[in-house]
């Protein structure tokens, strides 16, 4: 998919009647550090959570390293949508109108009722899905996620937290996982906490352990969902330092945050989201130095 490690295409997300994402598309290249900014309710967290399917997009596709993670969205594939009965009917009625115009006229909901769209359409959908689809659990194993509230497993020790998934998924033997975990713990200077339970740790320690817990899976990309928002101010630094270190080591990262300083220093690209769409995108210099859209200027005046 155009050399993108993660690609999000035409993403719509509804929570009931509330429309949170309104057709977001973006690509994350390998090794790229992308920071997503936006006011609360702008859909930035939802977009991030769609990237590893913690939220299922209503329409649209998510691709990881050339694999499709969501159902096929026929709207995004001309060869599929033109095979639909709805399209053919419209084409016959329109006397040779432009195909792009016709596609734009088709309502997304209509295409969800696959059975009514004819055998050719169903066959194309199925074939495309089979060719590209990757099971969500396999995909998630390659995508690390760090949460605002850490979400360490409270019933397991730090070491067990780190080894549970790689061992359960048979990516590593118990010994391999434990030695990798200890290596990561020594990197963050917390080897003495290996057998401690999460409830005994400070917020900053929890978040750093949550980060290395994800690293223990050897992920291709790390997603950060407001990783410092729930921390006491004096602990924000230690978490950001670890994230900068990851960035320096070349990890692909997508970070939803309010830390403008971090965005300036680390990001290759900044996405500004507003109203369920990416309103502006560019390098930190462009975004902070010469913001183009009004929404971004207002946002920056509030946070800077």
């Amino acid at each position, binding site marked *: 998919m155009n050399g993108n490690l993660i690609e999000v295409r035409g993403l719509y997300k509804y929570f009931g009647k509330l429309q949170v994402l309104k057709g977001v598309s973006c690509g994350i290249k390998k090794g790229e550090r992308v920071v997503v900014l936006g006011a609360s309710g702008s859909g930035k967290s939802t977009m991030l959570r769609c990237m590893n399917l*913690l939220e299922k997009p209503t329409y649209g596709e998510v691709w990881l390293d050339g694999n499709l993670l969501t159902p096929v969205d026929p709207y995004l594939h001309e060869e599929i949508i033109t095979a639909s009965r709805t399209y053919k009917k419209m084409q016959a009625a329109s006397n040779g109108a432009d195909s792009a115009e016709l596609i734009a006229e088709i309502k997304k909901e209509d295409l969800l009722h696959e059975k009514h769209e004819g055998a050719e359409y169903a066959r194309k959908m199925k074939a495309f899905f089979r060719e590209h689809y990757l099971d969500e659990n396999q995909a998630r194993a390659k995508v690390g996620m760090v949460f605002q509230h850490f979400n360490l497993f409270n019933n397991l020790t730090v070491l067990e937290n780190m080894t549970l998934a790689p061992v359960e998924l048979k990516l590593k033997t118990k010994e391999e996982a434990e030695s990798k975990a200890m290596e990561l713990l020594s990197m963050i200077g917390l080897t003495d906490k290996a057998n401690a339970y999460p409830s005994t740790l400070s917020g900053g320690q929890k978040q750093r352990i949550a980060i290395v817990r994800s690293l223990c899976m050897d992920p291709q990309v790390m997603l950060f969902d407001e990783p410092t928002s729930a921390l006491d101010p004096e602990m924000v630094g230690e978490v950001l330092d670890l994230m900068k270190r990851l960035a320096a080591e070349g990890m692909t990262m997508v970070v939803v945050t309010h830390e403008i300083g971090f965005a300036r220093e680390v990001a290759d690209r900044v996405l500004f989201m507003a109203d369920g769409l990416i309103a502006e995108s560019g390098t930190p210099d462009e975004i902070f130095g010469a913001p183009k859209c009004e929404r971004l200027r207002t946002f920056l005046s509030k946070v800077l």
Partner: protein
Amino acid sequence: MTFSEKIAKLWDLRGLFGESLGYSLLIAFGAVVLGFIIGVILAVIRIAPKTNPVIKALDKIAVLYITVIRGTPTLVQLLILYNSVLVWFKRMPTNLLVPIIAFGINSGAYMAEIIRSGISAVDVGQMEAGRSMGLSWLITMRRVIIPQAIKTVVPTIFNEIIILVKETSVVSYIVLKVNSIQKYDLLGMAEKQGLATPACYLVFLFFAALLYLTIVMLLTFLQHLIERRLKKNER
């Protein structure tokens, strides 16, 4: 027999008391284990995301089970099971299996709701963290959610266990009425031994009450022990 002779006879029978006590506890223990297994399975089915028709159907069955079992008296359920066995096998069941199954099925419905409440109380972030690393719903449930849920419901589960232990006294009524040679539990003992004069019966009842009280106090002690052990796991 004078009253004091009867009391003396009661004392002579202490071995049988012990035996009866054993049966009582055995029924309760078997029912607790069975009820707990049924409870966990039902709770997981109830809480599972209803994504495919099989889970939807299982959920309907679970709801029906819980509704019927919680909606009918234990005694009636026990009688239905005993009489069903009587009808099919043409004889009264004499082993402990029937009361264990009856009480287990009964308790399972209550345990299901208790455990479901425990699962609901676990932060949704725990499941999200598990899923985000590629663990399946069921594995995250088993390794992360259920251990935490159980911890929060230990007091409520023990409440249910205590009720169960005491409820097993109901067995005597059934077994006694149909088959007087059975000696399955404490209350059944007295009538069988011809000790059923009111005064003597009263002494016996107090004795039985004392025994149950002792058992329940021991259970409460065990509960506190378990709670303390689980708490230590956090520190």
